[in-house]
């Protein structure tokens, strides 16, 4: 990381990062994001994250980006996992236990089948 000394520097850092992301998105098949705020962790998000990482290792899935985020405020639905395959809109799953995470990895990630019954209903 180099020091940002002007508004132009900041814009440049932003542009470069956006380019990097575009390139990364083009070379990856799916993006998985796990909500890792305290609420999520209290509801078991660490175990969920662990399960996802293990599944990626077991199945040798190199083209998947896994990242964390804070809490979005849907505490009732913690742990929350978002899955986006390619350019498709992201799907938000709620109350994702390790078992559900395994199923999501198997069906959504491997076979591109959304598991409707785990999806958080709109405006919930």
């Amino acid at each position, binding site marked *: 990381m180099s020091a940002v*000394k*002007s508004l132009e520097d900041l814009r440049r850092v*932003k542009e470069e990062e956006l380019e990097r992301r575009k390139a990364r998105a083009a070379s990856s098949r799916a993006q998985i994001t796990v909500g890792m*705020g*305290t609420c999520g962790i209290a509801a078991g998000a660490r175990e969920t994250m662990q399960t996802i990482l293990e599944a990626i290792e077991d199945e040798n899935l190199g083209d998947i980006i896994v990242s964390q*985020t804070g809490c*979005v*405020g849907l505490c009732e639905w913690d742990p929350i996992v978002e899955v986006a395959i390619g350019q498709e809109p992201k799907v938000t799953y709620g109350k994702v236990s390790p078992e559900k995470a395994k199923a999501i990895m198997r069906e959504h990630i491997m076979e591109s089948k959304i598991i409707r019954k785990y999806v958080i209903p709109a*405006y919930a």
Partner: protein
Amino acid sequence: MKPIRSLVLVSSDPESIGRGAQEVHRRLQRAIEAADLENEVVVSMVGDVGRHDALPMVIIYPEATIYGPVTPENVPFLVEEHLVERRIAAGLEASTRELSGRIAWLSARRGTLPAEQRIVLARAGLIDPENVEDYIVHDGYEALAKALTEMTPAEVINEIGKSGLKGRGGAGFPTGMKWRFVSQTDDYPKYIICNADESEPGTFKDRLILEGDPHSVIEAMAIAGYAVGANEGYIYIRGEYVLAQERLATAISQARQMGFLGETIFGSDFSFDIHIHAGAGAYICGEETALIESIEGKRGEPRSRPPYPTTHGLWGKPSVVNNVETIVNVPPIIQHGAAWYRRFGTSNSPGTKVYTILGNVNVTGLIEVPMGITLREVIAIYGKGMQDGASLKLAQTGGSSGSIVPASLQDTPLDFDSYARAGVSLGSGALLICNEDTCVVDLAKVSLNFFKRESCGKCTPCRVGTQRAYQILTAISEGVGTQQDLDDLQMLSENLTEFSHCGLGQTASVPIRDVFRHFRAEVDAHVQLKVCPAGACPMSGQLAKAA
């Protein structure tokens, strides 16, 4: 997400339930799904709607059309006509004659439904909080760059003043005015203190910001420092918020590496750095002068005010103390301007407010909405209705020091002024929604237990008053309360308000005052009839003897 187009409320008081309200609710959901409207229409059971002539009733907003009595068989027609064809479902309307005051709010609404508007939580749950590039990609540090390279400190303060931003910690003091006071003194050094000692029961909005978007706090504090002439900032964070502390520490070191903190930021001659100061478990340290005492390595006992921290703060020097939610409004205001900010909320309370929704609703969580939404809307839209279709009895707003708001006030807009006019307070934004199984004596007892344990002990009215009030409430909940106890409680409540040294003792009386004001009959039932109408109190006399 599509905007919510319609809100469908189903009455679910006992009589409505007896007449099939649950089946009506189920069929409404099914019909709405079948019409592919489930992303635009919210259906919820809302308990008693305040009118009993044609139950079960279905009320549809924003048109405020009242249908009733609605049978399960009517539902497909109702959905087809009103929600699909968008016209009145002929023949199902309830007569409009007896429209009671409680639902007259409908016609006064602005014809649109309140949607979430995220300003302070825009990035929480979206970005990776440990990745500074993620923050930058989402417009991070642009406001700081703008302030430092294009604006004078006076212009920054002016913009914040014009935005109408008020403190979100509970008191609602204008932020621009606070900054101006500090900028006008020529006593140096000055300090920016971010109050992240969030401990009000039911409140966790600041934790979400700190955990989910820590750089926004850093950016906001640096702008504040530039505006008032401070080069050092402190974040006083609750000791219990371990994850938030870790994320902040990571963010601060990233910001230093990239030059957003340190010397000559953005090539200007402004320097700023931030320390994290973790508390060690004391609610009172959320009070600004107690917080300052605590940073100075002392017991967190509040100082006398005046003088205020704006002139005599940390180490006796001028200090800005801003709550987390308040200060993270600053970067978007600087970036987009005060006029943009004033488009949200009401004219006297611009902007948004973060609320935590808790208790007996179907869905708990946290929302950020423009000032002025009502409790009824919060429960129906974001809480997805009351659990088991129960009726709202009361809401405790703003944690233990907030108000106990009876169901009759659920159509009062949630903003500083409207709440003040109704004699209640918005507090920190925690909305604890309680159904009719909640006993007001029990609730007041739990609240006073909180104050009793958190009283710092410095002044007698609070130290002894909260203890004694808790004992009396315990006795009442045990069925051994007397008329004398009620009189004592009343007097204690007045003394707490009148003679306590700081806000803790002064607000400890609020639950007692509100319960007496709105639920006197229920308290009397405990004392005179030895009955807890909600069935929550033990009424066994056991604990009271022990106490």
